[in-house]
């Protein structure tokens, strides 16, 4: 909403300056977004008289002027303007002035050997027009040494405010004045429209032909015949231009004037072009309208139109039609002041993509009680500007009574804001805003004015009081401390998310946050792509589906880094993935991705499945999962290398993640260079930590007896899994065997083809006495037998 300071002052009698007014607007909730004060840029420019003009001794096209700028100390200026001559009055800028047209700062200097202390300026240099054939000439008798801007009426600041959707009354200057007056910035002096007596009945009648009367509750129409239309007077054109509107002709300009002045959109029809009476009805399928913006709109039965004998003539409350628009030739004019349903206006405007000042106001709510007064005011101005003879007003429908009485305990102000105000103060604020307040004591009866559709209850009244009294008056009061020392506030999953991030970062990974949406092919490649997870209106084709996995985002990130010349990426993300569109279908996952390793003197190894496994197990361990109990099953989902990947589980029904190298075919489809090692774990699927009755840890059981280690070299078929060998070894004598680990894996000379030698170190922990060699040998035999039974292993000869 744009308006000028002088326009505001037509409605507000105030001594307050621009700064006080803008500050007050923001304070009451009408946020000032921008103030353009042309006077400030033009302030250094004053009128000045040319006392002498002499030919420049060294240049044919230049003159040396003596300038009187009103201070009795003439200065010399070198000027190239052909119209510069002694006796004329122009506009002078002294040294140090910034020229608005060029942004140049004037400096004292010499021009071809003659001193020059400033400049006589043209309109273009002032940023006023493109006129640059000569310097500005002021009328004879203009006082010398006067600031130029006010003389030309260029000192009217333009204020732009953001009006929140609940305040349609402030889409008119009169409404702003009312708020400012309530905030004690002045006195509201908006004139009440006078009734204009009609000389004859309105010759055009209006029928409201609607299944839902709420779509257009009232429609007032009046003819003014015998007007003389044409360009509106300069004061009106200037006013409209100042707020960014283009003057059209007097009749149209009057409607725009009232839109801005009183937040009352109107429409004018050229009566000569209207055939018969008007009917307000739903549009029929297939109807179209060539609107005043020059565009043709296809309209349908959800939209409300004004039609005559020729068909649709106007989109009610949004935009008029070209066919019945007023031109300079209009003689008889029909002025419409109607009420429309805000929701339907919003819907229609949205469907057609029309943004008009009328729609903007009607979809927020126009003061119903001002329907007829607005028409009276428009009539009076039209009579003043264009002459003519008014008819009576024809009113179809009726003005809805929107008054609502609200019981308002004044204690609500204190309850909701902490502001301690006297009941009388509260009453005055509300009355100044136009509310009707009756009753005294603790509970007031308050009725909102017709222009405030946003007021429904007590809280709304509290807001009114609070914003006018000022939020700066609200005391800051400490939030009461909780009664005990804060206990843990995070859920187990939230804690895991935090710990998980730190654990993965401590593995040398950098945390990425990638989009929650990926392309459809990416979603499909990683097990997603369900139709219910596709966006109906994606921002880009490659951000179309909610991600089923964190990996496609990380793969794409690694490739972006590679494309920037950074071959190595070690990234993780911890965030949501989507298995369905229900509230319980979202999961929290953690994934890592490693690509490349910088060359280093200590050796280089491209990240592989074991790096991914290490990331996964480090994460699990940090999250309190006993990794010795976790099962690693070879193989994983399709997006992994079939023979270099693993599934992490606690049994087949309890899978919670995968790791490995990503499938080369998939990387090719994604346009990504591999190899990439990755893992992904769904944190929701991890077993919850068990609540323990005590924080005490079990007693430490250590033996005084030294553990004994024995090494075995098992020769097995290559398909045999190390995990199976270790499990068999551990189970061979559970009472004694406390550990088994692989210390060597060998294939080659001495080992038959297709076989692998796996070196296993088994640790025995004697319990109550040192083991004899015979006892150790007996356990060893059990181990060999157990591993042989489980895997077919033989001891390496």
């Amino acid at each position, binding site marked *: 909403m744009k308006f000028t300071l002088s326009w505001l002052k037509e409605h507000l009698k105030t001594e307050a300056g621009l700064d006080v007014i803008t500050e007050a607007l923001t304070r009451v909730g009408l946020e000032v977004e921008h103030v353009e004060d042309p006077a400030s840029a033009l302030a250094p420019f004053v009128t000045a008289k040319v006392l002498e003009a002499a030919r420049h001794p060294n240049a044919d096209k230049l003159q040396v002027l003596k300038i009187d700028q009103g201070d009795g100390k003439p200065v010399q200026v070198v000027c190239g303007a052909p119209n510069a001559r002694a006796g004329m009055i122009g506009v002078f800028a002294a040294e140090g002035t910034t020229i608005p047209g060029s942004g140049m700062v004037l400096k004292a200097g010499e021009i071809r050997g003659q001193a020059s202390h400033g400049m006589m300026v043209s309109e273009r240099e002032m940023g006023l027009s493109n006129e640059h054939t000569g310097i500005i000439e002021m009328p004879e008798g203009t006082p010398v040494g006067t600031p130029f801007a006010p003389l030309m009426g260029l000192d009217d600041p333009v204020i732009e405010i953001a009006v929140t959707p609940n305040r349609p009354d402030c889409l008119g200057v009169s409404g702003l004045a009312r708020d400012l007056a309530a905030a004690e910035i002045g006195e509201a002096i908006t004139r009440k429209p006078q009734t204009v007596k009609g000389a004859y009945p309105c010759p055009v009648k209006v029928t409201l032909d609607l299944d839902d009367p709420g779509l257009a509750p009232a429609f007032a129409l009046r003819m003014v015949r015998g007007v003389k239309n044409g360009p509106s007077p300069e004061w009106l054109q200037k006013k409209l231009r100042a707020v960014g509107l283009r003057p059209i002709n007097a009749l149209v300009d009057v409607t725009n004037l009232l839109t801005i002045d009183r937040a009352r959109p109107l429409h004018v029809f050229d009566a000569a072009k209207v055939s018969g009476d008007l009917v307000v009805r739903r549009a029929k399928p297939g109807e179209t309208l060539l609107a005043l913006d020059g565009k043709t709109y296809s309209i349908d039965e959800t939209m409300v139109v004004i039609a005559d004998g020729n068909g649709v003539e106007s989109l009610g409350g949004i935009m008029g039609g070209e066919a019945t628009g007023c031109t300079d030739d209009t003689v008889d004019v029909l002025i419409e002041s109607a009420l429309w349903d805000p929701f339907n206006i919003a819907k229609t405007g949205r469907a057609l993509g029309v943004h008009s000042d009328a729609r903007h106001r009607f979809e*927020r709510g126009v003061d119903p009680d001002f329907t007829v007064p607005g028409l009276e005011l428009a009539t009076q101005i039209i009579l003043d500007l264009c002459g003519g003879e008014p008819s009576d007003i024809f009113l179809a429908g009726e003005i809805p009574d929107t008054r609502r009485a609200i019981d308002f305990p004044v204690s609500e102000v204190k309850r909701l804001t902490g502001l301690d105000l006297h009941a009388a103060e509260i009453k005055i604020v509300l009355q100044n805003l136009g509310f009707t307040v009756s009753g005294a004591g603790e509970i007031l009866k308050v009725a909102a004015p017709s222009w405030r559709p946003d007021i429904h209850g007590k809280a709304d009244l509290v*807001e009114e009081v609070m914003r006018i009294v000022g*939020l700066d008056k609200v005391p800051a009061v400490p939030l009461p401390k909780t009664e005990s020392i804060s206990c843990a*506030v995070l859920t187990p999953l939230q804690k895991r998310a935090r710990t998980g991030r730190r654990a993965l970062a401590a593995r*040398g*990974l950098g945390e990425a946050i990638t989009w929650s949406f990926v392309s459809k092919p990416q979603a499909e490649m990683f097990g997603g792509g369900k139709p219910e997870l596709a966006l109906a209106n994606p921002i880009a084709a490659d951000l179309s589906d909610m991600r089923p996995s964190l990996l496609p985002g990380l793969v794409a990130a690694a490739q972006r880094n590679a494309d920037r010349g950074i071959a190595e990426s070690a990234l993780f993300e911890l965030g949501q993935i989507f298995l369905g569109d229900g509230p319980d279908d979202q999961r929290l996952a953690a994934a890592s991705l490693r690509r490349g390793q910088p060359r280093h*003197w200590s050796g280089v190894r491209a990240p592989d499945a074991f790096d991914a496994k290490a990331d996964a197990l480090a994460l699990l361990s940090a999250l309190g999962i006993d990794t010795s109990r976790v099962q690693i099953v070879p193989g994983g989902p399709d997006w992994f290398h079939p023979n270099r990947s693993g599934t992490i589980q606690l049994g087949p029904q309890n899978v919670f993640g995968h790791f490995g190298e990503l499938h080369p075919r998939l990387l090719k489809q994604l346009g990504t260079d591999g190899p990439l090692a990755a893992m992904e774990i769904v944190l929701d699927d991890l077993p919850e930590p068990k609540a323990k009755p005590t924080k005490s840890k079990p007693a430490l059981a250590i033996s005084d007896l030294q553990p004994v280690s024995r090494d075995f070299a098992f020769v097995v078929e290559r398909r045999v899994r190390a995990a199976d060998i270790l499990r068999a070894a551990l189970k061979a004598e559970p009472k004694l065997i406390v550990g088994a680990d692989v210390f060597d894996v060998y294939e080659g000379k001495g080992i038959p083809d297709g076989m692998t030698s796996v070196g296993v170190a088994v640790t025995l922990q004697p319990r109550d006495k040192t083991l004899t060699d015979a006892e150790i040998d007996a356990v060893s035999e059990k181990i060999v037998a157990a591993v042989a039974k489980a895997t077919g292993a033989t001891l390496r000869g």
Partner: protein
Amino acid sequence: MSDLSALEASILNDIAAASDEAALEAVRVAALGKKGSVSAELAKLGAMSPDERKSYGAAVNTVRDRIAAALADRKAKLGDAALDAKLAAEAADVTLPLRPSALEAGRIHPVSQVTEEIAAIFADLGFSVAEGPDIEDDEHNFTALNFPVGHPAREMHDTFFLAPGANGERKVLRTHTSPVQIRTMRTKTPPHRVIIPGRTYRNDSDQTHTPMFHQVEGLVIDRGAHIGQLKWTLIEFLKAFFEVPEVEMRMRPSFFPFTEPSIEVDIRCDRSGPEIRIGEGKDWMEILGCGMVHPNVLRNCGLDPDEWQGFAWGMGIDRLAMLKYGMPDLRAFFDADVRWIEHYGFRPLDLPTLIGGLSS
């Protein structure tokens, strides 16, 4: 006697000449071994008279002791020399650069770090952390929050819609974290003190808007929470978060469908330099929206607005991170450029706490 002296001199000479431990051992054996030259002198004692034996024996023993000492001394010197030689051979160029350690290389994203900072501050005030789904229904994202169907305020949200389901229901990507207010109030018993961080989505993209961003919402519901407390809470939060002694805050009346009264909050800052400085200067910057929870929202959650009351606020985590840590471009947050992550990210052990300070 002179023979013995000559023998001693000769052996001592051999000891000094021994260049390694093996040569020294040979000298020892030749002198003190069973068949050694000194042992031979001792063997002569048996053929001597008691007096001769006494004096010569003492002399030979003295020589033997001196030789033994010389051998030990020489052995120690040779050992040191051998170790020195070994150490010299083991020389390593310790100026060779290391591979960065994992702890050095790892990074936490600023959004995660700032979210933890915010949680640390509010945990001190007794707030817990609530979360909710990103895919929401119209009811939670709009209707229950007092956005009437067709209201222009809905249109201001640039909502992402999912493809309509079998029942024709059109799910949305939540446009704010406020639906979690509804979920909290509907499932838990008041009073409430929660913060709600999370991802939010709007169909909008330019230098300061990304289609996905992070918000944190705060909600206090009890029997006395009012705007004065909201004001205090926000001032204290901003001071703690920006780690500055004073924050000047300006509250402006505004409009949100789900709060009444509604307020926008600006903070004083200085934007004249290359970085924004909070708490000084002459500019105002909008930082969050807040207000008293609208009576309709309370009613929609089964709470009587005459009994329960409270306030809520919402702010952009990404934006707070940018203001505090100086990232210029929001889009880079979601680009996963490893250089950006390394530069703006936090180290794995930079744990934001109130006792240790939010940032180091």
